[in-house]
C-alpha cells in the first residue's frame, strides 16, 4: 500500500492536514484533517511499512491494548482509502 501520488502531510498550528500538490491539486483542492494517530500511520506508510510494521511502531509509541490498536489501524486505513489518500 502507498499514499496516493501528489498528497503530502503537514503539521500546521498543531493540526495535521493532508493536501494535494502538483497534478493532484487540479482535481483536489482543500485540506483533509488527520488526528495524531492517522498522521503516525501516514508516516509509517510513507516509509513503506505494512500493517504489521505500523502496529509495531504505534504499540511502542502509545502502549495501548493490542486488539484495540489493530482495530484502530484498520479503521484509519479504511478512512484514508475512502478519502482517496491511500492506494492498496
Amino acid at each position, binding site marked *: 500500500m502507498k499514499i496516493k501520488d501528489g498528497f503530502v502531510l503537514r503539521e*500546521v*498550528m*498543531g493540526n495535521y492536514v493532508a*493536501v*494535494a500538490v502538483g497534478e493532484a*491539486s487540479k482535481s483536489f483542492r482543500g485540506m483533509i484533517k488527520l488526528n495524531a494517530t492517522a498522521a503516525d500511520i501516514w508516516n509509517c506508510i510513507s516509509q513503506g511499512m505494512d500493517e504489521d510494521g505500523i502496529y509495531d511502531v504505534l504499540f511502542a509509541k502509545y502502549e495501548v491494548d493490542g486488539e484495540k490498536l489493530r482495530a484502530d489501524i484498520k479503521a484509519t486505513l479504511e478512512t484514508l482509502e475512502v478519502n482517496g489518500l491511500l492506494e492498496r
Partner: protein
Amino acid sequence: MEAFYIKLAELNVKMESKYDHTRRYCSEYIVEAADCEIVATTSDDEIDAELRLYEDPHSREYCEGICLYRSIAEQLPLFDRFVFHGAAVSANGKGYIFTAPSGTGKTTHISLWMKLFGDKVSVINGDKPIVRITESGATVYSSPWAGKEGWSTNSFADIGGICLIRRGERNRIKRISPSEYFDELMHQVYIPKNSEAMLKTLELMDALAKIVPFYLLECDISEDAARTSFEAMVK
C-alpha cells in the same frame, strides 16, 4: 495603457492593468520602479469569470482590480507574506487584526475603537491586509484592496494580537490556542492554487501561531464590546 508599479508590503509589484480605474484605486501605493519582485497579471477570461460571481452588477474595471490582487496573493507566500481576511488597525503603535466571516461585525468593531480611543487608533486596512513573517516577528501591512468601505491607509505595524470575533449575548474575550480554531482561522487566509505557494502559506500560518497572541471575542455591537477587546489586547 501602460503598466505601473506599486509598493506593497515592501515589495515592488508591476501591475499589468488595462484600466485607469485600477491605477486610481492604487494611487497611494504607486512608485517609480525599474524592477519588481512580483508581476500581477490577469486576462479577459478571468475578469469575465469574476463578473459572473456577483449578483449585483460590478464593472469590468473593478473586477480587473480584484483579479490582479488575486494574482498578487498567489505569489506573496514565496516572499513570506500572505493575504489575510480581516480588519487591521494600529493602536499605540501595534497592529491588531479582527477576523470573522463577512457580516459578523469586524468593520463595526474597528469603527467603535476609533470612536472610543480616537488618536490612539488608526485603520491599516478594513478587509484584506497582508501579513508578513520575519525572523523577528509578524507585521501587518495595508493594501489598496480594503472592502466596500475602502478603509485603508498605506501603513504597517508589528502585530500585537489577532482576534476572532463571534456574535454573543455577553461581551467577553479570552486568549485562545490557535490550534483549536484551525478551521476558522484557515478560512480567513488566502490559499494559493499554486502548490509551492500553498505549502508555504501553511508554514507561514504555523509560524504566525507561534509568534502572536490569539484571542476569541464574543460580543454584541456595542461600545462595551469595543472596550472589552481594547482593554484585553492593547492595555
